[in-house]
Protein backbone atom coordinates (compact mmCIF):
# COMPACT_ATOMS: atom_id res chain seq x y z
CA UNK A 1 0.00 0.00 0.00
CA UNK A 2 1.32 3.39 -0.93
CA UNK A 3 1.46 6.05 1.72
CA UNK A 4 -0.58 9.23 1.28
CA UNK A 5 2.06 11.21 3.10
CA UNK A 6 5.67 10.23 3.19
CA UNK A 7 8.06 12.61 4.87
CA UNK A 8 11.75 11.89 4.60
CA UNK A 9 14.58 13.54 6.46
CA UNK A 10 12.63 16.75 7.00
CA UNK A 11 14.42 19.44 8.99
CA UNK A 12 12.96 22.78 9.97
CA UNK A 13 15.09 25.29 11.81
CA UNK A 14 13.85 28.27 13.78
CA UNK A 15 15.80 31.41 14.41
CA UNK A 16 15.96 32.62 17.99
CA UNK A 17 17.93 35.16 19.95
CA UNK A 18 20.11 32.43 21.43
CA UNK A 19 20.82 30.82 18.09
CA UNK A 20 19.40 28.29 15.68
CA UNK A 21 16.77 25.90 17.03
CA UNK A 22 16.41 22.58 15.26
CA UNK A 23 12.66 22.53 15.74
CA UNK A 24 12.26 19.52 13.48
CA UNK A 25 15.35 17.39 13.05
CA UNK A 26 15.44 14.77 10.25
CA UNK A 27 11.77 13.79 10.64
CA UNK A 28 10.50 10.53 9.12
CA UNK A 29 6.74 10.13 8.91
CA UNK A 30 4.22 8.12 6.98
CA UNK A 31 0.45 8.41 6.85
CA UNK A 32 -1.65 5.96 4.81
CA UNK A 33 -5.07 6.66 3.33
CA UNK A 34 -7.80 6.47 5.95
CA UNK A 35 -5.35 6.07 8.80
CA UNK A 36 -4.86 8.15 11.93
CA UNK A 37 -1.29 8.87 12.91
CA UNK A 38 -0.60 10.61 16.19
CA UNK A 39 2.48 12.66 16.87
CA UNK A 40 2.94 12.78 20.62
CA UNK A 41 5.45 14.75 22.64
CA UNK A 42 5.83 17.54 25.15
CA UNK A 43 5.81 21.23 24.39
CA UNK A 44 8.76 22.27 22.28
CA UNK A 45 9.38 18.80 20.86
CA UNK A 46 8.62 20.05 17.36
CA UNK A 47 5.31 18.33 16.76
CA UNK A 48 3.49 21.48 15.75
CA UNK A 49 6.45 22.67 13.71
CA UNK A 50 6.31 19.36 11.83
CA UNK A 51 2.66 19.92 10.96
CA UNK A 52 3.26 23.51 9.94
CA UNK A 53 6.16 22.39 7.76
CA UNK A 54 3.90 19.88 6.06
CA UNK A 55 1.43 22.69 5.31
CA UNK A 56 4.37 24.91 4.34
CA UNK A 57 3.05 27.54 6.72
CA UNK A 58 6.21 28.29 8.69
CA UNK A 59 6.48 32.08 8.57
CA UNK A 60 9.74 33.32 7.13
CA UNK A 61 10.39 35.48 10.15
CA UNK A 62 10.24 32.42 12.41
CA UNK A 63 12.23 29.88 10.45
CA UNK A 64 12.34 27.70 7.41
CA UNK A 65 12.50 24.15 6.13
CA UNK A 66 16.15 23.43 5.44
CA UNK A 67 16.10 19.92 4.01
CA UNK A 68 14.06 16.83 3.27
CA UNK A 69 11.18 15.70 1.11
CA UNK A 70 7.46 15.89 1.80
CA UNK A 71 5.65 13.49 -0.50
CA UNK A 72 1.91 13.95 -0.61
CA UNK A 73 -0.16 11.89 -3.07
CA UNK A 74 2.81 11.47 -5.37
CA UNK A 75 4.10 15.02 -5.27
CA UNK A 76 6.97 16.53 -3.33
CA UNK A 77 5.34 19.47 -1.58
CA UNK A 78 8.69 21.16 -1.17
CA UNK A 79 8.99 21.38 -4.93
CA UNK A 80 5.54 22.61 -5.90
CA UNK A 81 5.10 26.33 -6.50
CA UNK A 82 3.64 28.63 -3.87
CA UNK A 83 0.47 29.02 -5.91
CA UNK A 84 0.00 25.26 -6.28
CA UNK A 85 0.63 24.79 -2.59
CA UNK A 86 -2.01 27.35 -1.82
CA UNK A 87 -4.49 25.48 -3.98
CA UNK A 88 -3.74 22.30 -2.04
CA UNK A 89 -4.23 23.91 1.36
CA UNK A 90 -7.79 23.85 2.58
CA UNK A 91 -8.58 21.61 -0.34
CA UNK A 92 -6.62 18.36 -0.17
CA UNK A 93 -4.77 19.24 3.02
CA UNK A 94 -6.79 20.79 5.80
CA UNK A 95 -5.89 21.78 9.32
CA UNK A 96 -7.52 22.57 12.64
CA UNK A 97 -5.84 24.20 15.60
CA UNK A 98 -5.60 24.25 19.35
CA UNK A 99 -7.43 27.48 20.14
CA UNK A 100 -10.76 27.55 18.31
CA UNK A 101 -11.54 30.93 19.91
CA UNK A 102 -8.64 32.75 18.33
CA UNK A 103 -8.48 30.66 15.17
CA UNK A 104 -11.61 32.18 13.72
CA UNK A 105 -11.74 35.75 12.48
CA UNK A 106 -13.67 37.79 15.06
CA UNK A 107 -15.17 40.24 12.58
CA UNK A 108 -16.48 37.79 9.97
CA UNK A 109 -19.59 35.65 10.37
CA UNK A 110 -19.28 31.90 10.83
CA UNK A 111 -21.07 31.29 7.54
CA UNK A 112 -18.71 33.52 5.60
CA UNK A 113 -15.68 31.79 7.03
CA UNK A 114 -16.98 28.38 6.02
CA UNK A 115 -17.92 29.61 2.55
CA UNK A 116 -14.50 31.03 1.77
CA UNK A 117 -12.59 27.82 0.98
CA UNK A 118 -15.62 26.34 -0.82
CA UNK A 119 -15.78 29.27 -3.19
CA UNK A 120 -12.02 29.42 -3.55
CA UNK A 121 -11.32 25.76 -4.25
CA UNK A 122 -14.55 24.39 -5.67
CA UNK A 123 -15.62 27.47 -7.56
CA UNK A 124 -19.12 27.34 -6.16
CA UNK A 125 -21.36 30.37 -6.45
CA UNK A 126 -22.05 32.37 -3.34
CA UNK A 127 -25.52 30.94 -3.07
CA UNK A 128 -24.40 27.34 -3.48
CA UNK A 129 -21.59 27.88 -1.00
CA UNK A 130 -24.07 29.27 1.47
CA UNK A 131 -26.24 26.20 1.20
CA UNK A 132 -23.19 23.97 1.52
CA UNK A 133 -22.04 25.88 4.62
CA UNK A 134 -25.36 25.28 6.33
CA UNK A 135 -25.18 21.62 5.37
CA UNK A 136 -21.69 21.42 6.89
CA UNK A 137 -22.76 23.08 10.13
CA UNK A 138 -25.47 20.46 10.48
CA UNK A 139 -23.00 17.73 9.59
CA UNK A 140 -20.73 18.61 12.49
CA UNK A 141 -23.68 18.35 14.83
CA UNK A 142 -24.75 21.91 15.49
CA UNK A 143 -28.50 22.55 15.52
CA UNK A 144 -30.10 25.74 14.16
CA UNK A 145 -27.50 25.91 11.41
CA UNK A 146 -29.02 28.91 9.64
CA UNK A 147 -28.82 31.06 12.74
CA UNK A 148 -25.34 29.87 13.53
CA UNK A 149 -24.15 30.80 10.04
CA UNK A 150 -25.13 34.38 10.70
CA UNK A 151 -23.47 34.63 14.09
CA UNK A 152 -20.01 35.79 15.01
CA UNK A 153 -17.37 33.63 16.70
CA UNK A 154 -17.64 35.32 20.09
CA UNK A 155 -21.27 34.23 20.31
CA UNK A 156 -20.37 30.54 20.35
CA UNK A 157 -18.67 28.32 22.91
CA UNK A 158 -15.23 26.81 22.45
CA UNK A 159 -16.64 23.38 21.65
CA UNK A 160 -18.98 24.78 19.01
CA UNK A 161 -16.18 26.80 17.46
CA UNK A 162 -13.99 23.73 17.20
CA UNK A 163 -16.87 22.02 15.38
CA UNK A 164 -16.99 25.01 13.03
CA UNK A 165 -13.24 24.68 12.47
CA UNK A 166 -13.81 21.05 11.58
CA UNK A 167 -16.61 22.04 9.22
CA UNK A 168 -14.24 24.44 7.47
CA UNK A 169 -11.55 21.79 7.30
CA UNK A 170 -13.76 19.11 5.75
CA UNK A 171 -15.60 21.51 3.45
CA UNK A 172 -13.54 20.48 0.40
CA UNK A 173 -13.27 16.79 1.31
CA UNK A 174 -9.56 16.81 2.10
CA UNK A 175 -7.46 13.67 1.82
CA UNK A 176 -5.49 14.60 4.90
CA UNK A 177 -6.75 16.40 7.98
CA UNK A 178 -4.12 17.76 10.34
CA UNK A 179 -5.38 18.33 13.85
CA UNK A 180 -2.95 20.26 16.03
CA UNK A 181 -3.95 19.68 19.68
CA UNK A 182 -7.61 20.17 18.75
CA UNK A 183 -8.98 19.36 22.21
CA UNK A 184 -6.30 20.74 24.51
CA UNK A 185 -8.17 23.97 25.18
CA UNK A 186 -11.47 22.19 25.77
CA UNK A 187 -13.07 20.54 28.79
CA UNK A 188 -13.14 16.74 29.00
CA UNK A 189 -16.82 16.37 28.26
CA UNK A 190 -16.44 18.60 25.19
CA UNK A 191 -13.22 16.81 24.25
CA UNK A 192 -15.18 13.56 24.14
CA UNK A 193 -17.65 15.14 21.71
CA UNK A 194 -14.94 16.43 19.40
CA UNK A 195 -13.03 13.13 19.39
CA UNK A 196 -16.25 11.34 18.50
CA UNK A 197 -16.83 13.74 15.64
CA UNK A 198 -13.32 13.26 14.28
CA UNK A 199 -13.68 9.48 14.43
CA UNK A 200 -16.98 9.72 12.58
CA UNK A 201 -15.37 11.79 9.83
CA UNK A 202 -12.53 9.33 9.52
CA UNK A 203 -14.90 6.38 9.27
CA UNK A 204 -17.34 7.97 6.86
CA UNK A 205 -15.04 9.87 4.53
CA UNK A 206 -11.92 7.73 4.88
CA UNK A 207 -9.97 10.90 5.59
CA UNK A 208 -6.44 10.34 6.82
CA UNK A 209 -5.77 12.22 10.05
CA UNK A 210 -2.48 13.49 11.38
CA UNK A 211 -3.28 14.10 15.01
CA UNK A 212 -0.91 16.08 17.18
CA UNK A 213 -1.26 15.87 20.93
CA UNK A 214 0.58 15.70 24.22
CA UNK A 215 -2.12 13.57 25.85
CA UNK A 216 -1.35 9.86 25.88
CA UNK A 217 -4.99 9.10 26.68
CA UNK A 218 -6.10 10.82 23.49
CA UNK A 219 -3.41 8.96 21.57
CA UNK A 220 -4.68 5.62 22.81
CA UNK A 221 -8.18 6.55 21.75
CA UNK A 222 -7.48 7.98 18.32
CA UNK A 223 -4.32 6.56 16.82
CA UNK A 224 -3.59 3.69 14.49
CA UNK A 225 0.07 4.57 14.45
CA UNK A 226 2.05 6.68 16.88
CA UNK A 227 5.15 8.81 16.40
CA UNK A 228 6.90 9.89 19.60
CA UNK A 229 9.02 13.03 19.36
CA UNK A 230 11.58 14.47 21.74
CA UNK A 231 13.58 17.67 21.20
CA UNK A 232 12.83 17.78 17.46
CA UNK A 233 13.66 14.13 16.79
CA UNK A 234 11.52 11.05 16.29
CA UNK A 235 12.47 8.59 19.03
CA UNK A 236 9.90 5.89 18.42
CA UNK A 237 7.34 4.85 15.79
CA UNK A 238 4.89 2.08 16.49
CA UNK A 239 1.37 0.78 15.99
CA UNK A 240 -0.71 2.04 18.89
CA UNK A 241 -1.40 -1.18 20.79
CA UNK A 242 2.22 -2.30 20.80
CA UNK A 243 3.41 1.11 21.89
CA UNK A 244 1.30 1.12 25.02
CA UNK A 245 1.87 -2.56 25.77
CA UNK A 246 5.58 -2.56 25.28
CA UNK A 247 7.14 0.87 24.87
CA UNK A 248 10.74 0.58 23.70
CA UNK A 249 12.39 3.96 24.02
CA UNK A 250 13.22 4.95 27.60
CA UNK A 251 11.52 8.29 27.00
CA UNK A 252 8.28 6.62 25.93
CA UNK A 253 8.52 4.31 28.91
CA UNK A 254 9.06 7.26 31.22
CA UNK A 255 6.15 9.20 29.78
CA UNK A 256 3.78 6.29 30.24
CA UNK A 257 4.95 5.66 33.77
CA UNK A 258 4.77 9.28 34.88
CA UNK A 259 1.15 9.84 33.90
CA UNK A 260 -1.38 9.11 36.62
CA UNK A 261 -4.12 6.87 35.21
CA UNK A 262 -7.71 6.71 36.34
CA UNK A 263 -8.39 3.66 38.50
CA UNK A 264 -4.77 2.55 38.51
CA UNK A 265 -3.46 3.95 41.70
CA UNK A 266 0.23 4.06 42.48
CA UNK A 267 1.86 5.14 45.71
CA UNK A 268 4.31 7.38 43.95
CA UNK A 269 4.53 8.52 40.35
CA UNK A 270 7.61 7.77 38.37
CA UNK A 271 9.13 11.04 37.20
CA UNK A 272 11.64 11.64 34.45
CA UNK A 273 14.36 13.68 36.15
CA UNK A 274 15.56 17.02 34.85
CA UNK A 275 14.02 18.95 32.03
CA UNK A 276 13.97 19.29 28.26
CA UNK A 277 17.42 20.37 27.01
CA UNK A 278 18.04 23.85 25.68
CA UNK A 279 17.52 23.38 21.93
CA UNK A 280 20.23 25.85 20.96
CA UNK A 281 23.00 23.96 22.68
CA UNK A 282 22.34 20.40 21.54
CA UNK A 283 25.44 18.42 20.69
CA UNK A 284 26.19 15.08 19.14
CA UNK A 285 24.77 13.06 21.99
CA UNK A 286 21.41 11.37 22.25
CA UNK A 287 19.23 14.31 23.33
CA UNK A 288 17.62 12.26 26.05
CA UNK A 289 20.83 10.89 27.60
CA UNK A 290 20.97 13.16 30.64
CA UNK A 291 17.44 12.24 31.71
CA UNK A 292 17.67 8.55 30.78
CA UNK A 293 17.93 5.92 33.50
CA UNK A 294 19.49 3.39 31.12
CA UNK A 295 22.13 5.64 29.64
CA UNK A 296 25.15 3.97 28.00
CA UNK A 297 28.56 5.45 27.28
CA UNK A 298 27.84 5.78 23.58
CA UNK A 299 24.65 7.75 24.30
CA UNK A 300 26.74 10.66 25.52
CA UNK A 301 28.75 10.97 22.35
CA UNK A 302 26.68 9.74 19.46
CA UNK A 303 23.11 10.02 18.30
CA UNK A 304 21.28 6.74 17.74
CA UNK A 305 19.71 6.26 14.29
CA UNK A 306 15.99 5.56 13.89
CA UNK A 307 16.15 1.81 13.25
CA UNK A 308 13.39 -0.32 11.76
CA UNK A 309 12.89 -3.37 13.96
CA UNK A 310 11.17 -5.26 11.15
CA UNK A 311 7.98 -5.65 13.19
CA UNK A 312 6.52 -2.37 11.99
CA UNK A 313 8.20 -0.58 14.86
CA UNK A 314 11.06 1.85 14.78
CA UNK A 315 13.12 3.14 17.67
CA UNK A 316 16.08 5.49 17.97
CA UNK A 317 17.97 4.11 20.95
CA UNK A 318 21.35 2.45 21.42
CA UNK A 319 19.81 -0.15 23.73
CA UNK A 320 18.28 -1.85 20.72
CA UNK A 321 21.38 -1.80 18.54
CA UNK A 322 23.67 -4.78 18.09
CA UNK A 323 26.63 -4.91 20.43
CA UNK A 324 28.99 -4.51 17.46
CA UNK A 325 27.34 -1.30 16.29
CA UNK A 326 27.34 0.19 19.79
CA UNK A 327 31.01 -0.52 20.24
CA UNK A 328 32.09 1.61 17.29
Amino acid at each position, binding site marked *: MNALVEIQNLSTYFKSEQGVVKAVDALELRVHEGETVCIVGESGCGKSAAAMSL*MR*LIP*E*AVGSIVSGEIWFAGRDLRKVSKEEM*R*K*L*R*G*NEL*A*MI*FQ*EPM*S*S*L*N*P*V*LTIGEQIM*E*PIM*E*HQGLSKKAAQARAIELIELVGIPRAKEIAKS*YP*YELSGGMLQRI*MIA*IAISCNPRLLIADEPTTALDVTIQAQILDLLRKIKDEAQTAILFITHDLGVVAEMADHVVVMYAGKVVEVSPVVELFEEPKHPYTQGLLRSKPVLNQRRAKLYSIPGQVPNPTTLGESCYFHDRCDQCLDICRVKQPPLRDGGDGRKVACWLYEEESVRGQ
Partner: protein
Amino acid sequence: MTSYFLKRVFYMALTLFGASILIFFLYALTPGDFVDTSPKLTAERKLELKAMYGLDKPVVERYFIWMKNAFQGDFGYSLQYQQPVMSLLNDYIWNSFLLAITSTFFTWLIAISIGVLSAARQHSWFDALVTIGVFAAMSLPVFFVGLLFIKLFAVDAKLFPAGGMMTIGSKEAGFAYAWDVVQHMFLPVTVLTLLSVGTLTRYFRTNMLEVIQQDFVRTARAKGLKEKVVLHKHALRNALLPAITLLGFELPALFGGAIITEKIFNWPGVGQLYMQAFSVRDYPLLMGFTMFLAILTVIGNLSADLLYRVADPRVRLK
Protein backbone atom coordinates in the same frame (compact mmCIF):
# COMPACT_ATOMS: atom_id res chain seq x y z
CA MET B 1 -25.72 50.44 26.43
CA THR B 2 -28.13 53.25 27.27
CA SER B 3 -26.85 53.51 30.81
CA TYR B 4 -23.35 53.61 29.50
CA PHE B 5 -24.30 56.35 27.09
CA LEU B 6 -25.97 58.41 29.78
CA LYS B 7 -22.96 58.10 32.02
CA ARG B 8 -20.73 59.26 29.21
CA VAL B 9 -22.97 62.25 28.52
CA PHE B 10 -22.89 63.17 32.19
CA TYR B 11 -19.09 63.11 32.27
CA MET B 12 -19.08 65.07 29.03
CA ALA B 13 -21.16 67.82 30.58
CA LEU B 14 -18.97 67.84 33.67
CA THR B 15 -15.81 68.08 31.61
CA LEU B 16 -17.19 70.87 29.48
CA PHE B 17 -18.24 72.75 32.58
CA GLY B 18 -14.67 72.47 33.86
CA ALA B 19 -13.30 73.53 30.52
CA SER B 20 -15.58 76.57 30.38
CA ILE B 21 -14.43 77.71 33.80
CA LEU B 22 -10.81 77.28 32.80
CA ILE B 23 -11.23 79.13 29.53
CA PHE B 24 -13.29 81.94 30.94
CA PHE B 25 -11.10 82.70 33.89
CA LEU B 26 -7.89 82.48 31.93
CA TYR B 27 -9.17 85.33 29.82
CA ALA B 28 -11.12 87.15 32.45
CA LEU B 29 -8.16 87.42 34.76
CA THR B 30 -5.92 88.73 32.06
CA PRO B 31 -5.30 92.43 32.34
CA GLY B 32 -6.07 94.39 29.22
CA ASP B 33 -8.55 93.67 26.52
CA PHE B 34 -9.54 95.00 23.15
CA VAL B 35 -10.95 98.16 24.64
CA ASP B 36 -7.97 98.80 26.90
CA THR B 37 -5.42 98.27 24.19
CA SER B 38 -7.07 100.47 21.66
CA PRO B 39 -5.15 103.78 21.68
CA LYS B 40 -7.74 105.73 19.77
CA LEU B 41 -10.41 105.68 22.44
CA THR B 42 -10.98 108.26 25.11
CA ALA B 43 -11.40 107.25 28.73
CA GLU B 44 -15.15 107.90 28.73
CA ARG B 45 -15.65 106.02 25.53
CA LYS B 46 -13.76 103.11 27.03
CA LEU B 47 -16.05 103.00 30.04
CA GLU B 48 -19.03 103.26 27.76
CA LEU B 49 -17.82 100.37 25.64
CA LYS B 50 -17.05 98.31 28.73
CA ALA B 51 -20.56 98.79 30.00
CA MET B 52 -21.88 97.88 26.59
CA TYR B 53 -19.97 94.66 26.46
CA GLY B 54 -20.66 93.95 30.11
CA LEU B 55 -17.01 94.15 31.01
CA ASP B 56 -17.73 96.26 34.08
CA LYS B 57 -19.66 93.54 35.90
CA PRO B 58 -18.08 91.23 38.49
CA VAL B 59 -16.17 88.30 37.01
CA VAL B 60 -18.44 85.57 38.32
CA GLU B 61 -21.51 87.26 36.99
CA ARG B 62 -19.85 87.69 33.63
CA TYR B 63 -19.13 83.99 33.58
CA PHE B 64 -22.75 83.09 34.08
CA ILE B 65 -23.88 85.52 31.45
CA TRP B 66 -21.38 84.01 29.08
CA MET B 67 -22.52 80.50 29.90
CA LYS B 68 -26.17 81.39 29.54
CA ASN B 69 -25.57 82.82 26.12
CA ALA B 70 -23.41 79.88 25.14
CA PHE B 71 -26.30 77.56 25.91
CA GLN B 72 -28.37 79.53 23.47
CA GLY B 73 -25.72 79.10 20.82
CA ASP B 74 -24.34 82.60 21.30
CA PHE B 75 -20.62 82.58 21.93
CA GLY B 76 -20.25 86.31 22.08
CA TYR B 77 -19.49 89.14 19.77
CA SER B 78 -16.14 89.62 18.13
CA LEU B 79 -14.75 93.01 19.03
CA GLN B 80 -12.44 93.18 16.07
CA TYR B 81 -14.84 92.10 13.36
CA GLN B 82 -18.01 93.47 14.97
CA GLN B 83 -19.81 90.25 14.20
CA PRO B 84 -21.20 87.40 16.32
CA VAL B 85 -18.50 84.78 16.92
CA MET B 86 -20.67 82.00 15.58
CA SER B 87 -21.35 83.66 12.26
CA LEU B 88 -17.67 84.51 12.00
CA LEU B 89 -16.73 80.89 12.60
CA ASN B 90 -19.30 79.84 10.06
CA ASP B 91 -17.67 82.09 7.47
CA TYR B 92 -14.24 80.62 7.94
CA ILE B 93 -14.78 77.06 9.08
CA TRP B 94 -15.53 75.53 5.71
CA ASN B 95 -12.21 76.67 4.31
CA SER B 96 -10.51 74.91 7.20
CA PHE B 97 -12.66 71.88 6.64
CA LEU B 98 -11.68 71.69 2.98
CA LEU B 99 -8.02 71.71 3.89
CA ALA B 100 -8.42 69.23 6.73
CA ILE B 101 -10.63 66.72 4.96
CA THR B 102 -8.33 66.60 1.96
CA SER B 103 -5.25 65.99 4.04
CA THR B 104 -7.08 63.47 6.24
CA PHE B 105 -8.04 61.57 3.14
CA PHE B 106 -4.46 61.43 1.89
CA THR B 107 -3.10 60.63 5.34
CA TRP B 108 -5.35 57.60 5.72
CA LEU B 109 -4.78 56.47 2.17
CA ILE B 110 -1.02 56.57 2.58
CA ALA B 111 -0.99 55.15 6.10
CA ILE B 112 -3.22 52.19 5.24
CA SER B 113 -1.33 51.36 2.05
CA ILE B 114 2.03 51.51 3.77
CA GLY B 115 0.73 49.55 6.73
CA VAL B 116 -0.49 46.71 4.52
CA LEU B 117 2.66 46.78 2.40
CA SER B 118 5.00 46.58 5.35
CA ALA B 119 3.01 43.70 6.79
CA ALA B 120 3.47 41.90 3.50
CA ARG B 121 7.17 42.62 3.38
CA GLN B 122 8.39 42.50 6.91
CA HIS B 123 12.12 42.90 7.45
CA SER B 124 12.75 44.24 3.96
CA TRP B 125 14.55 47.45 3.02
CA PHE B 126 11.13 48.87 2.30
CA ASP B 127 10.05 48.26 5.88
CA ALA B 128 13.25 49.80 7.22
CA LEU B 129 12.70 52.85 5.04
CA VAL B 130 9.15 53.16 6.32
CA THR B 131 10.36 53.06 9.90
CA ILE B 132 12.80 55.91 9.33
CA GLY B 133 10.26 57.88 7.32
CA VAL B 134 7.70 57.50 10.06
CA PHE B 135 10.04 58.85 12.70
CA ALA B 136 11.10 61.70 10.46
CA ALA B 137 7.50 62.70 9.86
CA MET B 138 6.75 62.50 13.57
CA SER B 139 9.64 64.80 14.40
CA LEU B 140 8.97 67.66 11.99
CA PRO B 141 8.36 71.13 13.41
CA VAL B 142 5.27 72.29 11.53
CA PHE B 143 6.09 75.92 11.05
CA PHE B 144 9.58 75.13 9.85
CA VAL B 145 8.40 72.67 7.20
CA GLY B 146 5.79 75.15 6.09
CA LEU B 147 8.33 77.91 5.74
CA LEU B 148 10.82 75.66 4.03
CA PHE B 149 8.22 74.51 1.51
CA ILE B 150 7.19 78.07 0.72
CA LYS B 151 10.82 79.04 0.30
CA LEU B 152 11.71 76.06 -1.88
CA PHE B 153 8.59 75.47 -3.95
CA ALA B 154 6.92 78.86 -4.05
CA VAL B 155 9.63 81.49 -3.75
CA ASP B 156 12.53 79.70 -5.45
CA ALA B 157 10.96 77.19 -7.82
CA LYS B 158 7.71 79.14 -8.28
CA LEU B 159 5.79 75.89 -8.70
CA PHE B 160 2.97 76.84 -6.37
CA PRO B 161 1.49 80.00 -4.93
CA ALA B 162 2.99 80.98 -1.58
CA GLY B 163 -0.22 81.47 0.34
CA GLY B 164 -3.89 82.36 0.40
CA MET B 165 -6.75 80.43 -1.08
CA MET B 166 -6.92 82.01 -4.53
CA THR B 167 -4.96 84.39 -6.62
CA ILE B 168 -5.61 87.94 -5.48
CA GLY B 169 -7.81 89.83 -7.85
CA SER B 170 -8.72 86.70 -9.72
CA LYS B 171 -12.23 86.74 -11.14
CA GLU B 172 -12.19 83.20 -12.47
CA ALA B 173 -15.20 81.00 -12.01
CA GLY B 174 -16.14 77.40 -12.46
CA PHE B 175 -13.36 75.01 -13.31
CA ALA B 176 -10.68 77.68 -13.51
CA TYR B 177 -11.61 78.83 -10.02
CA ALA B 178 -11.46 75.31 -8.68
CA TRP B 179 -8.08 74.76 -10.27
CA ASP B 180 -6.79 77.95 -8.70
CA VAL B 181 -7.89 76.75 -5.27
CA VAL B 182 -6.36 73.32 -5.81
CA GLN B 183 -3.05 74.93 -6.64
CA HIS B 184 -3.22 76.98 -3.49
CA MET B 185 -4.15 73.91 -1.50
CA PHE B 186 -1.25 71.83 -2.67
CA LEU B 187 1.42 73.03 -0.25
CA PRO B 188 -0.68 73.30 2.92
CA VAL B 189 -2.26 69.91 2.27
CA THR B 190 1.17 68.38 1.73
CA VAL B 191 2.43 69.83 5.00
CA LEU B 192 -0.63 68.72 6.94
CA THR B 193 -0.45 65.23 5.47
CA LEU B 194 3.24 64.97 6.18
CA LEU B 195 2.65 65.93 9.79
CA SER B 196 -0.05 63.42 10.58
CA VAL B 197 1.00 60.58 8.31
CA GLY B 198 3.85 59.49 10.58
CA THR B 199 1.81 58.64 13.63
CA LEU B 200 -0.97 57.00 11.66
CA THR B 201 1.37 54.91 9.51
CA ARG B 202 3.16 53.72 12.58
CA TYR B 203 -0.15 52.84 14.12
CA PHE B 204 -1.28 50.85 11.10
CA ARG B 205 2.05 49.16 10.66
CA THR B 206 2.11 48.01 14.28
CA ASN B 207 -1.52 46.92 14.09
CA MET B 208 -1.04 44.99 10.88
CA LEU B 209 2.10 43.30 12.16
CA GLU B 210 0.23 42.32 15.28
CA VAL B 211 -2.82 41.07 13.43
CA ILE B 212 -0.90 38.93 10.95
CA GLN B 213 0.66 37.11 13.91
CA GLN B 214 -2.74 36.01 15.07
CA ASP B 215 -4.23 32.58 14.87
CA PHE B 216 -7.08 33.44 12.55
CA VAL B 217 -4.66 34.69 9.91
CA ARG B 218 -2.92 31.34 10.12
CA THR B 219 -6.34 29.71 9.68
CA ALA B 220 -7.03 31.87 6.62
CA ARG B 221 -3.73 30.73 5.10
CA ALA B 222 -4.43 27.12 6.03
CA LYS B 223 -7.71 27.43 4.14
CA GLY B 224 -5.70 28.13 1.02
CA LEU B 225 -6.97 31.65 0.51
CA LYS B 226 -5.01 33.96 -1.74
CA GLU B 227 -2.45 36.05 0.15
CA LYS B 228 -4.24 39.16 -1.12
CA VAL B 229 -7.46 38.02 0.51
CA VAL B 230 -5.64 37.08 3.70
CA LEU B 231 -4.12 40.55 3.99
CA HIS B 232 -6.96 42.72 2.72
CA LYS B 233 -9.94 40.90 4.09
CA HIS B 234 -8.83 39.03 7.16
CA ALA B 235 -5.95 41.11 8.46
CA LEU B 236 -6.86 44.63 7.35
CA ARG B 237 -10.40 44.47 8.66
CA ASN B 238 -9.16 43.63 12.09
CA ALA B 239 -6.44 46.25 11.95
CA LEU B 240 -8.92 48.90 10.80
CA LEU B 241 -11.33 48.22 13.59
CA PRO B 242 -9.49 49.94 16.42
CA ALA B 243 -8.54 52.71 13.97
CA ILE B 244 -12.18 53.67 13.57
CA THR B 245 -11.87 55.17 17.01
CA LEU B 246 -9.29 57.56 15.60
CA LEU B 247 -11.83 58.98 13.17
CA GLY B 248 -13.73 60.36 16.13
CA PHE B 249 -10.60 61.98 17.48
CA GLU B 250 -10.06 63.64 14.11
CA LEU B 251 -13.22 65.67 14.52
CA PRO B 252 -11.74 68.63 16.41
CA ALA B 253 -8.87 68.73 13.93
CA LEU B 254 -11.26 68.70 10.99
CA PHE B 255 -13.25 71.71 12.13
CA GLY B 256 -10.79 73.23 14.51
CA GLY B 257 -8.47 74.01 11.69
CA ALA B 258 -4.78 73.51 11.46
CA ILE B 259 -3.86 76.65 13.31
CA ILE B 260 -0.19 76.89 12.48
CA THR B 261 -0.40 75.67 8.93
CA GLU B 262 -3.19 78.06 8.13
CA LYS B 263 -1.26 80.89 9.66
CA ILE B 264 1.91 80.09 7.73
CA PHE B 265 0.13 79.63 4.41
CA ASN B 266 -2.20 82.54 5.03
CA TRP B 267 -5.17 80.24 4.48
CA PRO B 268 -8.48 81.96 5.29
CA GLY B 269 -9.63 79.40 7.85
CA VAL B 270 -10.53 79.44 11.52
CA GLY B 271 -6.92 78.82 12.52
CA GLN B 272 -5.84 81.92 10.75
CA LEU B 273 -8.74 83.82 12.31
CA TYR B 274 -7.69 82.57 15.73
CA MET B 275 -4.10 83.69 15.35
CA GLN B 276 -5.32 87.11 14.18
CA ALA B 277 -7.49 87.37 17.26
CA PHE B 278 -4.42 86.85 19.42
CA SER B 279 -2.59 89.81 18.06
CA VAL B 280 -5.47 92.18 18.83
CA ARG B 281 -6.67 90.40 22.00
CA ASP B 282 -10.15 89.83 20.65
CA TYR B 283 -11.17 87.80 23.71
CA PRO B 284 -14.79 86.96 22.88
CA LEU B 285 -13.59 85.41 19.65
CA LEU B 286 -10.75 83.55 21.35
CA MET B 287 -13.01 82.26 24.11
CA GLY B 288 -15.74 81.29 21.73
CA PHE B 289 -13.40 79.43 19.47
CA THR B 290 -11.58 77.66 22.30
CA MET B 291 -14.88 76.56 23.81
CA PHE B 292 -15.95 75.40 20.39
CA LEU B 293 -12.81 73.26 20.17
CA ALA B 294 -13.47 71.79 23.60
CA ILE B 295 -16.99 70.84 22.57
CA LEU B 296 -15.71 69.26 19.38
CA THR B 297 -13.13 67.28 21.34
CA VAL B 298 -15.71 65.92 23.72
CA ILE B 299 -18.12 65.04 20.92
CA GLY B 300 -15.23 63.49 19.02
CA ASN B 301 -14.32 61.29 21.97
CA LEU B 302 -17.87 60.18 22.37
CA SER B 303 -18.37 59.43 18.70
CA ALA B 304 -15.07 57.53 18.64
CA ASP B 305 -16.42 55.34 21.36
CA LEU B 306 -19.78 54.86 19.67
CA LEU B 307 -18.17 54.18 16.30
CA TYR B 308 -16.11 51.43 17.83
CA ARG B 309 -19.18 49.91 19.35
CA VAL B 310 -20.96 49.94 16.03
CA ALA B 311 -18.02 48.50 14.16
CA ASP B 312 -16.92 45.67 16.40
CA PRO B 313 -19.34 42.76 16.55
CA ARG B 314 -17.80 41.72 19.85
CA VAL B 315 -18.98 44.81 21.69
CA ARG B 316 -21.97 45.59 19.52
CA LEU B 317 -24.43 43.59 21.53
CA LYS B 318 -23.25 44.35 25.03
